[in-house]
């Protein structure tokens, strides 16, 4: 983009709000990147949704971003030159309803609205997976979707008029589950049929190729951050609380909520590809692993298959 020299010294990271992104916040708060290279200029860009982030990356405005696997796959499938750096987190997801008479997917009437971020989002894919499994119709709920950001959706769910259900991620999932009259009728795990990585880190091949040093610095910082949360959850909660506008104790609860897991392992990629290809969300239906993940993490390939195997046994 600019001249070589300058671009060597700057890295732009797109951050998003959500507990699943906690390690990224830690990198920012604890200046892990600066520690690795004091000359590196780090720009943190906040964008409102994944689609915008993808487009910014396409424009070369963002070097590293975080998103769920399906939106990444959609872009990759369209020919974007980018790959996964590493996994970031697994997270509980849940389809929450405010309606007493709805206890399972089968109870949805055709006029009950389900709020989720957007078509093609992980929530949408998970819902489709569940629909296919239970009813054999992937698009059973497609006509009832309401595209809404999580806070708006939560608002609407609480208001209890327009929206009957919300496919929520933390912290909204946690907030909603505390409200009276709101219950979970489907978890992400149930929908997917096993564990899966919720958020992955993504970067462009260009960045990877042109700034190998920065890339590896980032990878290292990410590792450090994940380890930090793992080993010093209290301290991490203390540091992050402000960032999420929460009390530290609340933050700690959330970080250790069952199902919340920060790990660089990538799980469920194959299954997402299979499903999305089968349902023509993707044009290509088979990918070499190395087409999707940067070399440094290919070691994880085995781990993924193993995880997949173990899931199926559950």
């Amino acid at each position, binding site marked *: 983009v600019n001249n070589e020299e300058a671009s060597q010294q700057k890295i732009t990271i797109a951050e998003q709000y959500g507990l699943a992104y906690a390690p990224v916040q830690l990198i920012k708060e604890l200046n892990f990147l600066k520690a690795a290279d004091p000359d590196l200029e780090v720009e943190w860009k906040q964008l409102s949704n994944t*689609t915008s982030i*993808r487009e910014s990356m*396409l*424009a070369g405005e963002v070097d590293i971003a975080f998103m769920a696997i399906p939106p990444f796959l*959609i*872009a990759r*499938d*369209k*020919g*974007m030159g980018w790959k996964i750096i590493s996994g970031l987190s697994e997270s509980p997801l849940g389809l929450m309803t405010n309606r007493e008479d709805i206890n399972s997917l089968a109870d949805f009437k055709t006029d009950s*609205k389900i709020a989720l971020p*957007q*078509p*093609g*989002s992980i929530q949408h894919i998970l819902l489709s997976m569940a629909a296919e499994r239970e009813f054999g119709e992937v698009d059973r709920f*497609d*006509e009832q*979707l*309401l*595209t*809404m950001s999580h*806070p*708006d959706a939560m*608002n*609407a769910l609480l*208001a209890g*008029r*327009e*929206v009957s259900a919300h496919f929520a991620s933390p912290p909204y999932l946690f907030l909603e589950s505390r409200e009276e009259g709101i219950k979970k009728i489907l978890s992400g795990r149930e929908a997917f049929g096993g564990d899966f990585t919720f958020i992955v880190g993504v970067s462009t091949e260009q960045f990877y190729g042109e700034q190998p040093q920065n890339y590896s610095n980032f990878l290292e910082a990410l590792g450090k951050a994940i380890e930090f949360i793992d080993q010093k959850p209290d301290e991490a909660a203390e540091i992050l609380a402000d960032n999420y506008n929460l009390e530290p104790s609340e933050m700690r609860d959330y970080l250790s909520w069952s199902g919340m897991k920060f790990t660089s392992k990538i799980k469920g990629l194959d299954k997402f590809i299979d499903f999305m290809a089968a349902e023509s*969300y993707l044009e290509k239906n088979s990918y070499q692993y190395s087409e999707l993940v940067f070399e440094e993490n290919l070691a994880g390939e085995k781990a993924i298959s193993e995880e997949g195997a173990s899931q199926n046994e559950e």
Partner: protein
Amino acid sequence: MKSKYKQRFFWGILLAFIWQLTAVSGIFSELIFPGLDQISIVLFKSLQDGTLIKQIAFSLSVIAQGLFLATIMALLFALTAYFSSTAAGLIDTLTALAHPLPGIALMPLILIWFGSGRMAILIVIIHSVLWPLSLNLSTGFNSIPDIYTLIAKNYRLNKFEFMYKILIPASLPYFISGLKIAWARSWRALISAEMLFGAINSLGGLGWYIFQRRVFFDLPGVFAGIIVIIMIGIVVEDFIFAKLENKTVKKWGA
């Protein structure tokens, strides 16, 4: 008139040509800057399978309704403000309050109060159109030469007659320019609202079409949607507004 279409055509072709040249030149990646060929293919496909037509029809019907309601309301507002200075104070305050508020900031409230159906979209359109239109109408009403008002008093027109015999024709240039703005604004509001509220009963309008393309990273599709909006805009501009102007303001020699 004829020459206008010729010009439109000429400039249209020229812009298309420049676009295609840029696309082919490869300055931008194909992902960013798809060629017209790609765009047309997507457009053609979408038209052929019928959903796009339905979506266009849906959007147009919502716009027609929204514009109609908003125009009536704007007229009511501007008229009440014109006739009563107390009402003018309230309407003034309301306009100053509501005009700068973007629909997107009001989304949570609209969702809660009006849901996400056609009603909500209508509200967003009305909120977008009402204020600028009533502003233009008010300015128009207040710019009418005094003499017409005096004549109206002299001939004892009642308020209703005064309105349609004097106020509206005398302020017609403002009305038309307000309507043009309203028309464009209603498109904008509709598209945004459809994007945010999603599809209703599987239909959704043009906004939903574009949003879906965008989400699935299909830029030619996004452009196809945009081209449809543009085409409709031009048709309305050239056939409805131009006719309206030729039959009124231009003929009166204003």
